[in-house]
């Protein structure tokens, strides 16, 4: 798609950027074999959402910062999720000695 280069960066440009980052993150979650990379890509997706929220807030209703509050909650929750995720990966690594998503055949998808 073509994004018009305007002197002022509009909301749609930010949203297009957020969508690209979001799509890349999704791609990484779907293809990634290394579990750590999968977790990183989830964080990438959540960051893209944060970018969209902050940009929307600044354009649509800059007087009420509820979008930024939302972004703070996303940030907090994603940090908790990453901590839990890494703990689970470590537990799985202790059990199997591998961090390869393709190596786990115990449960058939």
């Amino acid at each position, binding site marked *: *798609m073509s*994004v018009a280069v305007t*002197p*002022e*960066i509009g*909301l*749609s*440009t930010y*949203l297009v*950027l*957020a*969508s690209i*980052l*979001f*799509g*890349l993150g999704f*791609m*990484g979650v*779907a*293809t990634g*074999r*290394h579990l*750590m*990379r999968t*977790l*990183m890509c989830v*964080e*990438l997706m959540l960051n893209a959402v944060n970018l969209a929220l*902050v*940009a929307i807030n*600044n*354009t*649509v*209703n*800059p*007087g009420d*910062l*509820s979008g*930024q*509050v939302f*972004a703070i*909650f996303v*940030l*907090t*929750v994603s*940090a*908790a999720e*990453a*901590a*839990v995720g*890494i*703990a689970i*990966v*470590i*537990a799985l*690594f202790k*059990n199997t000695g591998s*961090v*390869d998503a*393709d190596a786990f055949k115990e449960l058939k998808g």
Partner: protein
Amino acid sequence: MDTLVFWFFAVVSVLMAIGVVFAPSVLYAALCLLSVFFCMAGFFLLNNADFLAVAQVMVYAVGLTIVLMFGLMFTGNQALPAQDNKWGWLVKTIAVFSGLSIAGVLAKASSSFVPKFVTPMAEPMKQNVIANGTATQLGELLLTKYILPFELVSVLLLIAMIGAILLSKKTFSDQGSGVFFSFDEGKLVPEALGWKKDVGLE
């Protein structure tokens, strides 16, 4: 100037995001993620979100990246063996295609976004926010309007911390002493553990 800064961050963040997904080593991917986090902080500054930018650097770029590095050290940064899955390429193709299509659909919709509901007072409000900073208003919102999710997320953080420590603790023995049930009928029977046998590597 803002435009220039925006395009710089935009190009860097997209390139680094591609790096997160496709970098050969996971360590490089983590470093790429770090620079994406910094670019995000830059975008936040461009959008008058000063507090959030600082929080982004502190939580993501410092905290989370370090935790990721620790995770990599625990699990070892080893190369994965070559794939022997017959349908692996198909899965990969579908995944790449779906990722691209998600990005495409969202971006197509985004490029036509008409901010229909923009507040008439947007510009003076923006100036006001720029003049006063966001921290005061954010604090007030967090402790009044959003007090309920704020309290709930504090419980969540506590439990996530406890759970993460529990799951990744070094030694672990499920051979319980039965302390928990000192008042219940019956006693613990070790044979009952048989059908879900522990397979720890300790």
